């Protein structure tokens, strides 16, 4: 296969060779068949450093087709360095359409966030995962953690949460919050904020997780039961924000803190930039959006 762009005709469609894609697709199929189970795969070297999303890029490259429309987000934003360079990478190597609108995309590659707009059937969310093993920091031996997954020995996950409560008086883990999938495998939902954990449960879209350095792929097929671990007397809670988004006045969304000057003033804005833009386009105004937009008009 050749891409439309003749300058890079030496590359196969979506960069990876077809044999590699087949190998990754087999791993993905296995991962979908066993939700939450970490499937090893022969991760390739990608033209980017580990930690920049090599796992996610390989998964995306393996599943993307000519009719797909790709959206890439980093911390919820479409316009950060990582998101732009991965989007450009796929524009160059596939020539397919890209978008920043969640509802138009068929494949969304993400680092850290799940879009605020609920995902629909037919969409695929690809996560970039740095450390796929939820028990890694308590049990450094891979042989042992595999055995613990196999025998469903997950007491250690609660040791981690116990430590949190003992030190902070509450479960202070705010990202990479462990979940149990379909009552079987405990899974690390990659460094997404725990705010997004409930969105994983019973999601209509397919969710794929790729860890390039650790060479693991795992998946949540549509409508999978995903439960965040907790204690009976310390139930799971999502982060709450005191104020709505300063630009679009959205509530019940995940906000980023932005420092405005060296006097300590700050604003909280939507981390999902597409969601924020669409709301502002629809006429919603936050407390700091007013004059800037009037000036533009």
């Amino acid at each position: 296969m050749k891409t439309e762009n003749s300058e890079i005709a030496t590359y196969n469609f979506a960069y990876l060779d077809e044999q590699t894609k087949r190998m990754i697709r087999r791993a993905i199929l296995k991962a979908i068949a066993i939700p939450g189970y970490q499937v090893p795969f022969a991760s390739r070297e990608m033209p980017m450093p580990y930690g920049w999303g090599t796992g996610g890029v390989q998964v995306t490259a393996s599943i993307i087709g000519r009719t797909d429309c790709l959206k890439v987000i980093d911390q919820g934003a479409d316009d950060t360095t990582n998101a732009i360079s991965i989007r450009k990478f796929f524009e160059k190597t596939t020539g397919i359409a890209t978008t920043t609108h969640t509802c138009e995309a068929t494949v969304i590659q993400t680092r850290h966030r799940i879009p605020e707009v609920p995902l629909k059937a037919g969409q695929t969310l690809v996560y970039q995962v740095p450390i796929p093993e939820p028990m890694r920091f308590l049990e450094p031996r891979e042989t042992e953690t595999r055995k613990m997954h196999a025998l469903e020995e997950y007491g250690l996950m609660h040791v981690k949460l116990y430590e949190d409560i003992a030190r902070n008086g509450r479960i202070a883990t705010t990202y990479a919050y462990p979940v149990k999938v379909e009552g079987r495998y405990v899974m690390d939902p990659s460094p997404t904020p725990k705010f997004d954990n409930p969105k994983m449960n019973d999601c209509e879209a397919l969710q794929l997780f790729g860890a390039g350095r650790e060479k693991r792929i795992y998946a949540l097929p549509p409508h999978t039961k995903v439960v965040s671990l907790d204690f009976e007397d310390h139930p799971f809670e999502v982060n709450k924000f005191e104020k709505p988004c300063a630009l679009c006045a959205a509530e019940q969304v995940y906000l980023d803190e932005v420092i405005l000057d060296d006097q300590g003033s700050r604003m909280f804005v939507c981390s999902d930039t597409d969601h924020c833009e669409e709301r502002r386009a629809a006429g919603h105004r936050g407390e700091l959006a007013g004059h800037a937009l009037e000036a533009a008009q």
Partner: protein
Amino acid sequence: MTSQTQSEVLDTSIAPNEGRDERPLLSISGLSKLYGTRIGCRDVSLEVHAGEVLAIVGESGSGKTTLLNCISSSLTPTAGTVTYQMRDGRVSDVFAMSEAERRQLMRTEWGFVHQNPVDGLRMTVSAGANVGERLMAVGDRHYGQIRNRATSWLDRVEIDTDRIDDQPREFSGGMRQRLQIARNLVTGPRLVFMDEPTGGLDVSVQARLLDLLRTLVADLGLAVIIVTHDLAVARLLSDRMIVMRQGRVIENGLTDRVLDDPQAPYTQLLVSSILQV
């Protein structure tokens, strides 16, 4: 515990407490472990009854630890069987169990106190979590209850309860060892393996630890298999003892009988080499 000096009975299978169940808790027959052509232990058979403390003594390299590791299923023996009587009375072969069952057994019915507490503790989580880990592993999901039980166990092993949130790496050697004991006993095991639990501690700390162990063993009615090279530890804690040399059991009997009237030449040597202060 060691009040059977008058006993002339050499039938070593007598349990010291009221024998509710005549069957042994653990029985080992023909156990051998070879490391290539080297012998770890050879043809060991013994029985342990509920509430009984058995000491395995012998010099370094005599196969004590190999034997303990085989019995506790950390090592797979070359030959022989180990059977254990479960809480529900069922007797099962430890090595015929699935790995899941065996690990479940080790978390609930058994405990293992390592010589070096670092091997038996999680050094980077707090004392409370160390004690609570087994509870969480068997499905406890109530933070308050887990913490209360951890607190009461710390108290029981004489660790100040205000140190519950400190990590064991901030503890002294003796405290670490006591924490390891609490961590093992919290799920109420029936059989505890101890590998030189007092090794590396100074004598006064040793004495306190032994005193504590003796109280706990008596209170909880634990069966214990303790490996030690220290005959004083065996004398204080155990009801029965076996003496090993070059991988074989060379003497077997009630502790006081073996120590006061050793039969095998090697045991005589061992007993006579204790320093008298």
